[in-house]
């Protein structure tokens, strides 16, 4: 319990540092982005928006740095991330519209890829040297192809030519977004091809990692003991897999942390309305408040994912718990 509290405290500290860096960074940039923006947008923005831009950077007119920082934290606590310059809407509401799509698509793909890869990796490790081993070069091949190429080819073949899957967008134009069954079904249907393509291009990593750990574990005495105890085969495999999966869990936390940011190519290829696309637009248009907002969300997601992974690891591996005593 003390261990868990310590971890949480550590992550809270890290989050504070991230938030502060996000505040300091624009002030370290050469020139003054606010002035540049206002200059660029003269005549198209209301005085209110100019003020909002200044405030979003914490650059009030007469405030000192500390006071600006206070304002920034206060706004952040209220979920106020400033106003996007190009889209003219509050950054928080823009993010609220795009983050769920990315998290849904990439999150589901990552979890599916992890489950398939880890499960098949465990089997491959157990039956090493058998004909199943040919699965490995196949999976590695798909991982070796650059994603934009794999995605585009799949889109062309299975979407445009064969019409097995709908293309472009996250849901059909004929359904009304909301918590109704038609919409959810449409989202799932439109998500299939992107998910399959992501799984295909990422499953080899999980598979190889798990297979190698599995082979290491099979060499361990406690697996030999499981056989000597006369346990059923699946119990023996479970003994080995239970320990072999630990490094994969650590990797999963890293992968989940990247879910928000690592989606650019997928979203471009499949024209999916996620954060990756949004970030690209924000960077191209020098939309500083939006960039800042997205970075903040990415940072916090990575931290949250790592915290969760740490806690899961504590639950799964008792050896990490005794660290507190040292």
């Amino acid at each position, binding site marked *: 319990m003390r261990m868990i509290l310590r971890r949480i405290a550590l992550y809270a500290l890290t989050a504070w540092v991230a938030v502060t860096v996000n505040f300091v960074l624009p002030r370290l940039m050469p020139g003054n982005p606010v002035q540049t923006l206002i200059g660029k947008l003269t005549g198209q923005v209301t005085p209110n928006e100019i003020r909002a831009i200044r405030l979003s950077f914490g650059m009030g007119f007469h405030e000192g740095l500390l006071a600006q920082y206070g304002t920034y934290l206060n706004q952040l606590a209220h979920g106020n991330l400033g106003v996007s310059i190009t889209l003219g809407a509050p950054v928080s509401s823009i993010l609220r519209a795009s983050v769920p799509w990315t998290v849904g698509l990439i999150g589901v793909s990552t979890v599916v890829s992890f489950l398939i890869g880890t499960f098949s990796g465990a089997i491959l490790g157990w039956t090493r040297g058998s004909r199943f081993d040919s699965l490995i070069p196949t999976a590695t091949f798909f991982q070796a192809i650059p994603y934009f190429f794999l995605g585009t080819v799949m889109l062309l073949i299975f979407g445009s030519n064969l019409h097995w899957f709908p293309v472009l967008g996250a849901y059909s134009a004929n359904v009304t977004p909301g918590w109704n069954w038609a919409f959810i079904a449409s989202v799932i249907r439109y998500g299939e091809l992107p998910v399959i393509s992501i799984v295909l291009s990422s499953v080899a990593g999980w598979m190889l990692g798990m297979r190698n750990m599995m082979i290491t574990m099979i*060499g*361990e*005495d*406690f697996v*030999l*003991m*499981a*056989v*000597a*105890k*006369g*346990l*059923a*085969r699946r*119990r023996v495999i479970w*003994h080995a897999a*239970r*320990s072999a999966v630990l490094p994969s869990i650590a990797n999963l936390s890293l992968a989940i942390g990247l879910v928000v940011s690592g989606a650019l190519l997928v979203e471009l290829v499949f024209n999916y309305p996620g954060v990756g696309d949004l970030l690209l637009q924000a960077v191209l248009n020098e939309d500083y408040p939006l960039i800042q907002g997205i970075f903040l969300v990415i940072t916090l997601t990575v931290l949250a994912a790592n915290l969760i992974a740490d806690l899961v690891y504590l639950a*799964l*591996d*008792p*050896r990490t718990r*005794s660290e507190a005593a040292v």
Partner: protein
Amino acid sequence: MSASRIDVGNRLDRRGASPSREATPSARDFVLEVSDFSVHYGVDANMVRAVHDVTLNVRRATVLGVAGESGSGKSTLVYALTRLLRPPGVISGGRAILNVSSDDDPARVTPVNLTTASERELRRVRWSHVSIVLQSALSALNPVRRIGREFDEVLRTHRRAMSRRERRRRAEELLALVGLEPDRLNRFPHELSGGQRQRVMIALALALDPELVVMDEPTTALDVVTQREIITELAELRARFGFAMIFITHDLSLLVELADEIVVMYAGTIVERASAGELYAAPRHPYTLGLLESFPPLHGERRELTGIAGSPPDLAVESVGCSFAPRCPFTMDRCRAETPPLAPIGETGRSVACWLHATPSPVPVPAALSRRWTAPVGPTAPGVTSR
């Protein structure tokens, strides 16, 4: 020359000397019967003959010690016997019969051929009839599970009728046998000391009341004090429950105290077999002598430790003659030309694979290898008879 070789007791001769399987008074006498057992690692050019033509029997409720230095094949032998050998190890010949007594009627004995048994048959005899204790208890226990689950698992697998509470009670009972508190069941392996972990392993090995417990250097990783305690406990437990034991170690002086009979292995073959007391006090094979001189005696006067010069042979190379000849201080011409078979020598039930003891004796047997020995009246007191 070759005629006398057969006379002295080749494999054929040995079979003649020991009654054949059908003629054994009863399979009940032996829990394990191994004949002409061979194990290879790998195939073809790189093949290593790890165990070659081993024949041995383990009498019920007795301790068979298997001694030899690293690479002598002692561990390979027992892993192969229990069918736990991992690839590329393969059993290339011989057979091992485990005489399993049925749970409800101990007098009724069913032979199980371990070398040919199916996965299913093996699962049935494993742990309920043969259990095993490994050298490192830390790696033998699953690091992410509590001790209690290890007990629960074997009981749940082999004793289906037991309830959760009964299993727990049995686990506590077993821990008490090896002097551990019941609260240890809630601990993880890394929270126990080395001695406690090995005690847990011993308790676990006895969980199903097996007829044979294989101990693969169970005390090697422990300090001498703990080692002593565990050996004493093992002797007591055996006396109380009457299981047979195969005890593997390189520490011959340890075996002398625990074992009834000892086989000494060198380069994958048995070079000497004798009762523990006889072997200790009056070794017949130069290698046994060398092993004994590598350990200080626990009692008696101090003497210089000589050890054995050289190192064990490369088993991937097929050699001619006695495999110990290059390191042996008593080598004769014959040793380099012919492999000595394990043959009985005049004394009671002991055998040795050495040309020095061939009859008629080619040369006077060196004094160190011809000491007289008479069984002591009381319990064996090792070290006292040392020179």
